[in-house]
């Protein structure tokens, strides 16, 4: 912990970058977040190393989505800060924040598709915004390719309102990875998906890590898939990360709430 302390006190480098230990992509330090009287996050510090998959477990309403929104600067902490590759994303605004977000892709819990746009336009959106040099033909090809990854061939012309929840979620996945970002945040990517697609999403997260060194943060309720894909698992309870360990060690955790949580999957023995 001591080297963390000296780092926070060190003056920022001239280019506005702060020093982060090698191999870290995101570092959250002492995050507190309140909504009125609701003190959701109560001092969260967690590191996300490059090219790893971290799964965040926790009961519903425990603040997992709120934590994830801090990582990409959608919410600002009341105290503490989030560094993304040395940039304090909690203090950015305007174009600097927009630029910092180019590193990210995010899958939202309820997909958050633009309901005024067709499926094809939804997935094409990040391409049209950030790759203006691409022709419409190239865009259409990439969109079709990403949709096919999730078994959504030929759905370009459909509108989100006409899709099932699971299909919307898969469109959300396609949209999040269409720019092939280095960090992908998944907010319950497989909740409500069928087992085959769930397994497919797990595989995709694993493959992206191996091939492209993608850093993934995954919120999940699916303990089975968490143990499959995670390099480390963090447990969020009462606004704090109470455990953060590799899956093999986490199984033997003594934390009573986590034990309850895990017993739903592994049985109580």
């Amino acid at each position, binding site marked *: 912990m001591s080297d963390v302390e000296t780092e926070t006190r060190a003056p920022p480098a001239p280019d506005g970058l702060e020093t982060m230990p090698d191999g870290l992509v995101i570092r959250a330090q002492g995050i507190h977040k309140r909504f*009125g009287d609701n003190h959701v996050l109560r001092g969260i510090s967690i590191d996300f190393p490059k090219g790893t998959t971290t799964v965040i477990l926790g009961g519903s309403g425990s603040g997992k989505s709120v934590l994830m929104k801090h990582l990409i600067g959608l919410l600002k902490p009341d105290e503490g800060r989030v560094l993304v590759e040395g940039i304090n994303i909690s203090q950015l605004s305007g174009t600097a924040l927009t630029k910092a977000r180019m590193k*990210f892709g995010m899958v939202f819990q309820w997909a958050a598709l633009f309901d005024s746009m067709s499926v094809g336009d939804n997935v094409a959106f990040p391409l049209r915004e950030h790759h203006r040099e691409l022709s419409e033909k190239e865009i259409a090809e990439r969109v079709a390719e990403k949709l096919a990854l999730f078994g959504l061939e030929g759905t370009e012309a459909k509108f989100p309102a006409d899709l099932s929840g699971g299909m919307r979620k898969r469109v959300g996945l396609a949209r999040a990875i269409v720019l092939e970002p280095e960090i992908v945040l998944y907010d319950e990517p497989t909740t409500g998906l069928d087992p085959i697609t769930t397994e497919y999403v797990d595989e995709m997260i694993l493959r992206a890590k191996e091939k492209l060194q993608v850093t993934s943060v995954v919120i999940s309720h699916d303990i089975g898939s968490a143990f499959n894909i995670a390099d480390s698992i963090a447990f969020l309870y009462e606004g704090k990360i109470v455990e953060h360990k590799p899956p093999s060690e986490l199984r033997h955790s003594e934390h009573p709430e986590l034990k309850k949580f895990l017993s739903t999957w592994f049985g109580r023995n």
Partner: protein
Amino acid sequence: MTTESAENTATTPVLHWVRLPFERIGQGVIDLFVEVGHLTLLAAGGMAWSFRRPFRPTLLLQQCEYIGVGSLPIVLLTGLFAGLVFALQSSIAFAKFNAESLVGATVVISLARELGPVLTGLMVTGRAGSAIATELGTMRVTEQIDALESMAVSPIQYLVVPRVVALIFVMPMLTLLFNYVGFLGAFIVSVYQAGINEGTFMGRIYQVVDIVDLLGGLFKSACFGGVIGLVACYRGMNASGGSRGVGVAATRTVVSCSVSILVLDYFLTTLLLMVFE
């Protein structure tokens, strides 16, 4: 999500009822200043973002079409009937002084200076302002605005700027049309119903009405357009609490815009009178 209602349970009932109105008024005044502050910030952000690339002409045109075409029928209808009834009332009143010849000029000046901008503003508030608040509010509560931000696109630039700029452009055009059909209505009533001579009616208008009357009114309507856009976007962007929150955002947009238009009208009119008279 806040629990304001649970305050004051400790005070005695009498004291509570004495304090309550003051607290409510005080809170209202504080809220008003806070919201004006937020609106100013949104306006400043909008200004900054509207000069940054990428420019979004397509979105702007889409919004102009949506707001302009959508509001056109109701603006034409209210304009026509405002002209009809205003001419009817003034022809009766002016007849008492044998001054019927002034009906046309009176109606046209009133339309150009006040009725056109204010009534168009109120109609556009009801039609486009509430629609914008509903649309952006829905996008907020379904996390579409978060999604936009997560894809490194500024919602101010993508959503707010096109709507506010479109309203600033479209409002004067709608006001002009309102004025025109209002004038037609007045003409019909005066000439065919009240029997005023057509030449007198038009002659007095040429004599009395100045282009400044019209331009001043159009300037005011552009200001109203900006206010409607900012308030509607602010309410929508800050909606919370599911579909009920979206409804609240739309209702509050209509209330705040209507009040703002009437209050702002007084100050803008004062300003215009200082400059031009």
